[in-house]
Structure formats: structure tokens, C-alpha cells
């Protein structure tokens, strides 16, 4: 034995180093791994002396309140089987996934853990399913658009009550709206005079001080009466007072000057209503406008999202295997969408 070790000392040394390295690797990989435990044939999630919290305890405790989880599982299955996954949908989903990751990484270093918890609420059990979530989200938009296009005359009524329209704006920053300086007065008069002779788009391009819209000939996109409320989901950058002025105008009309004072200072606005035809707005070539219109239509009728899902679900064989699951699903739909099952 001694002779063998003496003759092969280098091999033995290397073997000891490798075994030591592997030993440390195994320790390091396993040190945060938990050990399994069972109690009365049930798997244990956590334990303290004299008591175990089993997986079944956890399920029994949380399942009565998981209507939204059941609904999301149901919704995902209906959408995935109703809308084909095209190349375009995949492309949009990839963009959405990148945006979500980029935004989440700005919020927290440990964003994967946060996103994993959020994804579970939407019916996806791991971070690796983020792309599946994105595909289903894009498909859902597609499904909603298809349904609304087909039933437009029926669903547009509630939406039209919100006075949907697209608008353009001219913005002019001032130091004091009641006491304009000579330069400010001159600029304001120039804008007024120009509007008498030229189109609103040309004047906005030439004079507007709004950096978001000036290079788009003043086009500020979609607004409706919901855009004036502070909790509006609208992404419009048009101030509430300017929206209110726009709501009171007809297509092709321009408002008088509207004064807006906020944390960034005082500004004067004139707003022009470009389009009020709901059909044209919903089918606008501008994706931002058509998407805003789509969400505004869905928001105008609290039961519409479910009605759309249900219309597609009816084409599939659906079976609830236990009464509790059906009851939780029905309660969730009733509470959230006001629908009766």
C-alpha cells in the first residue's frame, strides 16, 4: 500500500484535491436545501415543537379565498385554446416580456422573486412562465378586439357616453397667466392670428411648447370624460381642464385658451378636436389610439370582459369537478363582473 502511494503520489494528491473541491461544492449547493418531513401521512411545510403545518393545512386555509386564482386558471385555458399563437403575437409577447423585466429590475434587485409571486396570482407557477403570461396577455387583447369588432354597435353605447375623441394641443408656458409679459402677449397673439389662417396642426408644429406633441403636429391622442378624473387609467398627457374643454367641443372645433397651473408651472393651452367618430377611433391606424380605445370600451362596461371570455368559453367543453371550485368561480365572477352563473 505504501509503495502504491509512493509510486502514485501525484495522482493521489490530485484525487484528494478534486474530492475536497467536490465536497465543498456539494456542501455549498446543499446548504440552503431543506429536508422533507411527514406527519400522519401528510407532507409538512413548516414545524415548531409539538406542531406541524402541513401542505393540506395550507391548502385548507387558503383555498376558500382563491376565487381569483381559479378564475385566472380558467381564463388562461380559454384564451390559449381560442386564439392561435401567431408569429406576430409571439413578437408582441417578447416585447412585453422585455418591458416587464426592465421595469421590474428598476424596482428591485430581487425582481424574479417578486414577479414569481405576482405571476402565481395570474395562474403561472414559475418565473420561467413569464413569456407564457405575456403570450396570453397579447392573445387576450386580440380576443377582446375580435369580439368588440364583431359586436361594435352593441358595445359602443356605454363607451360613447364617455364622449371619446382624439385631440391636438398647443401649449404655451407663461410666468403669470393674469399678467403676461410683452413677449408672452406677442406670442399668444401670433398663435391666435396664425390659427385664423392656417391649420391647427401647422400652428402646433410651429408654436407649441409641449415637447411630447409639438413634433407630432400637436396630436395628443385619445381622451374621454374618464381622462379628467385623477384616478383615470388613461395614459393621456392632456391636463384635466384641457380635456374638459375638449369634451365640450364638436369635431373640428378649437377651444379658447385654457389656463393650467401645476407643480411644473403655469401654461396656456388651446385644444382642437380631431375625431369624434367612435368607429374611426376604434379602428385608428395609430396603435396607441386604437389600444386606448379598446381599454376604454372594456372599462365602460364592467361586465364586458367576462361576457367576451364567456362567449369563447361556450365553444369549449367545460367541466367543474367539484362544487367548491364552481362556487368559488361563480362568486368571483358575480363580485367582480356582476355576472350571474
Amino acid at each position, binding site marked *: 500500500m505504501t509503495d502504491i502511494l509512493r509510486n502514485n503520489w501525484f495522482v493521489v494528491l490530485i484525487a484528494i484535491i478534486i474530492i475536497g473541491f467536490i465536497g465543498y461544492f456539494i456542501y455549498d449547493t446543499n446548504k440552503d436545501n431543506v429536508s422533507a418531513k411527514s406527519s400522519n401521512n*401528510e407532507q409538512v411545510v413548516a414545524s415548531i415543537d*409539538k406542531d406541524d403545518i402541513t*401542505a393540506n393545512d*395550507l391548502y385548507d386555509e387558503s383555498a376558500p379565498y382563491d376565487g381569483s*386564482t*381559479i378564475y385566472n386558471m380558467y381564463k388562461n385555458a380559454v384564451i390559449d385554446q381560442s386564439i392561435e399563437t401567431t408569429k406576430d403575437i409571439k413578437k408582441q409577447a417578447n416585447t412585453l416580456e422585455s418591458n416587464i423585466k426592465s421595469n421590474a429590475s428598476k424596482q428591485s434587485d430581487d425582481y424574479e*422573486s417578486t414577479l414569481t409571486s405576482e405571476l*402565481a396570482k395570474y395562474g403561472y407557477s414559475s418565473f420561467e412562465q413569464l413569456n407564457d403570461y405575456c403570450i396570453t396577455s397579447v392573445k387576450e387583447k386580440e380576443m377582446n378586439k375580435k369580439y368588440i369588432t364583431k359586436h361594435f354597435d352593441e358595445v359602443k353605447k356605454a363607451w360613447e357616453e364617455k364622449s371619446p375623441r382624439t385631440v391636438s394641443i398647443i401649449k404655451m408656458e407663461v410666468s403669470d397667466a393674469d399678467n403676461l409679459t410683452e413677449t408672452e402677449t406677442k406670442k399668444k397673439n401670433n398663435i391666435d392670428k396664425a390659427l385664423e389662417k392656417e391649420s391647427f396642426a401647422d400652428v402646433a408644429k410651429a408654436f407649441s411648447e409641449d415637447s411630447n406633441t409639438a413634433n407630432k403636429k400637436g396630436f395628443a391622442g385619445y381622451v374621454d370624460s374618464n381622462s379628467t378624473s385623477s384616478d383615470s387609467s388613461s395614459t393621456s398627457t392632456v391636463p384635466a381642464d384641457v380635456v374638459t374643454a375638449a369634451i365640450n367641443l364638436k369635431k373640428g372645433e378649437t377651444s379658447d385658451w385654457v389656463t393650467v397651473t401645476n407643480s411644473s408651472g403655469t401654461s396656456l393651452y388651446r385644444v382642437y378636436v380631431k375625431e369624434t367618430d367612435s368607429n374611426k377611433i376604434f379602428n385608428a391606424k395609430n396603435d396607441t389610439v386604437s389600444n386606448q380605445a379598446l381599454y376604454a370600451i372594456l372599462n365602460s362596461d364592467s361586465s364586458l370582459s367576462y361576457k367576451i371570455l364567456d362567449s369563447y368559453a361556450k365553444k369549449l367543453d367545460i367541466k367543474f369537478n367539484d362544487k367548491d371550485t364552481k362556487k368559488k368561480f361563480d362568486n368571483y365572477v358575480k363580485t367582480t363582473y356582476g355576472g350571474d352563473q
Partner: protein
Amino acid sequence: MKKTPILLVCAAMMLSACSGATATIKDKDEAIMTIGNTTYTKGDEYDLLKISTGTDLTMELVKQAIYKQEVKVTDEMKEKAQEQIDNYKGNMSDFESQIKSLGYTSTKQYMNKVLIPSLQASELTEKYFADAKKDVQNTYKPSKARIIQCENKATAKKALKALKDGTDPEEVASQYMVDSATYSGKETLITTKKTDISTRMINKLYKAKKAGVIDEIFTNESSGTTYAYVAVLVTNTYKDIKDEVYTTLSSDDDVKKACLVYYLKKYNFEVHDQDVFDNLKANNPEYLVSRPDLAKSKD
């Protein structure tokens, strides 16, 4: 020398580096609904619940298990919970439908699952101040004192002399304290949670061997002010101030956390599910009391 056995040993050791245990429910394969060609099982539902809210719920169930050991449900608690229910009913006409919309089947269930555990939690926190007396003392260094906040060191020097001469602290305060002083010679509970006085003063009051005037002028330069303080220790005997310490600190989040950690240690809390462990490791490593290294590495 044959190298095959060594390679086999290495391969076996590498393979032993596997993932941790994951607990699941008994009837995980039982179908709950079938939508077209997709069948969901109880196991699918459980996995989602565990990932979204499972860790919080596990900790809630662990707390309830600790309450069972430490705080018995008394008739007084039941009466208090019933009073709360009666109050809710008096103030909200649709109270019953509201709790049903939250998933509770009855007011009794709401009482047992929400109100009574909440009363037990308060009771446990109060018990913590007695059970973990040494931890509380070492961490919060409680004492009761009369402190006088003066404009500067010169005024504080005069105040200290008056106190040493035996003048009543409130009388000294009326003469030497700064206008609208936070500390005006009245009895005040002092702990490390007070951020407007110096750590040195807190330590001096806590460590003083007997009650009386502390022969020192204190400043708190880290707060960016030039105020100077003098102090008279009333008592730093824990049993005399325990109730006040509880009333003052019980709503503090750090104290609530320390209380839970204390009882988790006492009952040897352990996690046997990797998802729950990973979540706690990321968000509350201090709860993983069997792995104190994780909380330290986060600090």
C-alpha cells in the same frame, strides 16, 4: 492505479447535490376543472396558492400554533371579540355580506380566524416583555427619567447645578428649559427608540446604579442642534417600568418582529418546503432561526 473508482466516487458525490424538499397536498392529482383540453388539479391550485401567498400564510399558521402553546383563548377574549363583531354590525349594515365576500362563511368563523388571533397576538406581545426581559433590556435600554432640554451648554450647566442643589426638576425646567421643549422635566420613558436624545444619555440612564441627578451635560450633535440636556433618573428597575415599556413599544414593527423571532427560537421553528424557505430567505431571513447566518449576511 485504476482511476475508474475515483471517477465513480466523484460522479456519485456530484449527483448528491440535488434540490431541497417540496411539500405538497395528499390529493394533488384530483381534478378540479377541465377546460377544453386543459385539466387543472388540486395540486396545480395548491402550487399557485403556495407561491403567491403561501409564505405569509405559513407564518400566520405558525403564529397560531405558538398562540396555542403560549396564550390560551379565554372567555374574556371571546367576549371582546363578540363586542367587536357587535360594533361592526352596528356601524356597517352589510357587515355579514362583506365578510362573506372575503370568503368567511359566518361571523363566528371571522371571529375565530381574525379577531381572536389578533387578541392573542396582543397578549403574546405583552407576554414577550416578561418572557424576554433580558432581550428587551439589552436592546431597548429602558429607564424612566426627568429630562430638561436647554438652549445650550451654559444654560444646562446652571440647570444641573440647581438640580444638584435639590431643586425640583419641574421647577428647574420652568426656569432653564428652551421654549416649547420636548423634554420639560416631566417623567418620561426613555428607550433606544428615542432618536432626539443622545445614545450616551440613554446608556447612562440605563446603567446608573441608583436614582437621582446624572452629573453630566448631554448634547446630541448628530441631530444637528445645539440643545443641551440634563437628566434625573427616576428608575431603571425593569419590573417598575415593564407595563409602560410594553405600552410604548408594543406597536413598534421591530418589537413585533423581535417577539416573533423570540418564540420561533423557543419552539425550534423549521421549514421543510424549499419555496417557503427561499421566500423567507429573500424577505425575512431573521425568521429562519435554525439558520442565523442568513440574517447576519443580510445585515
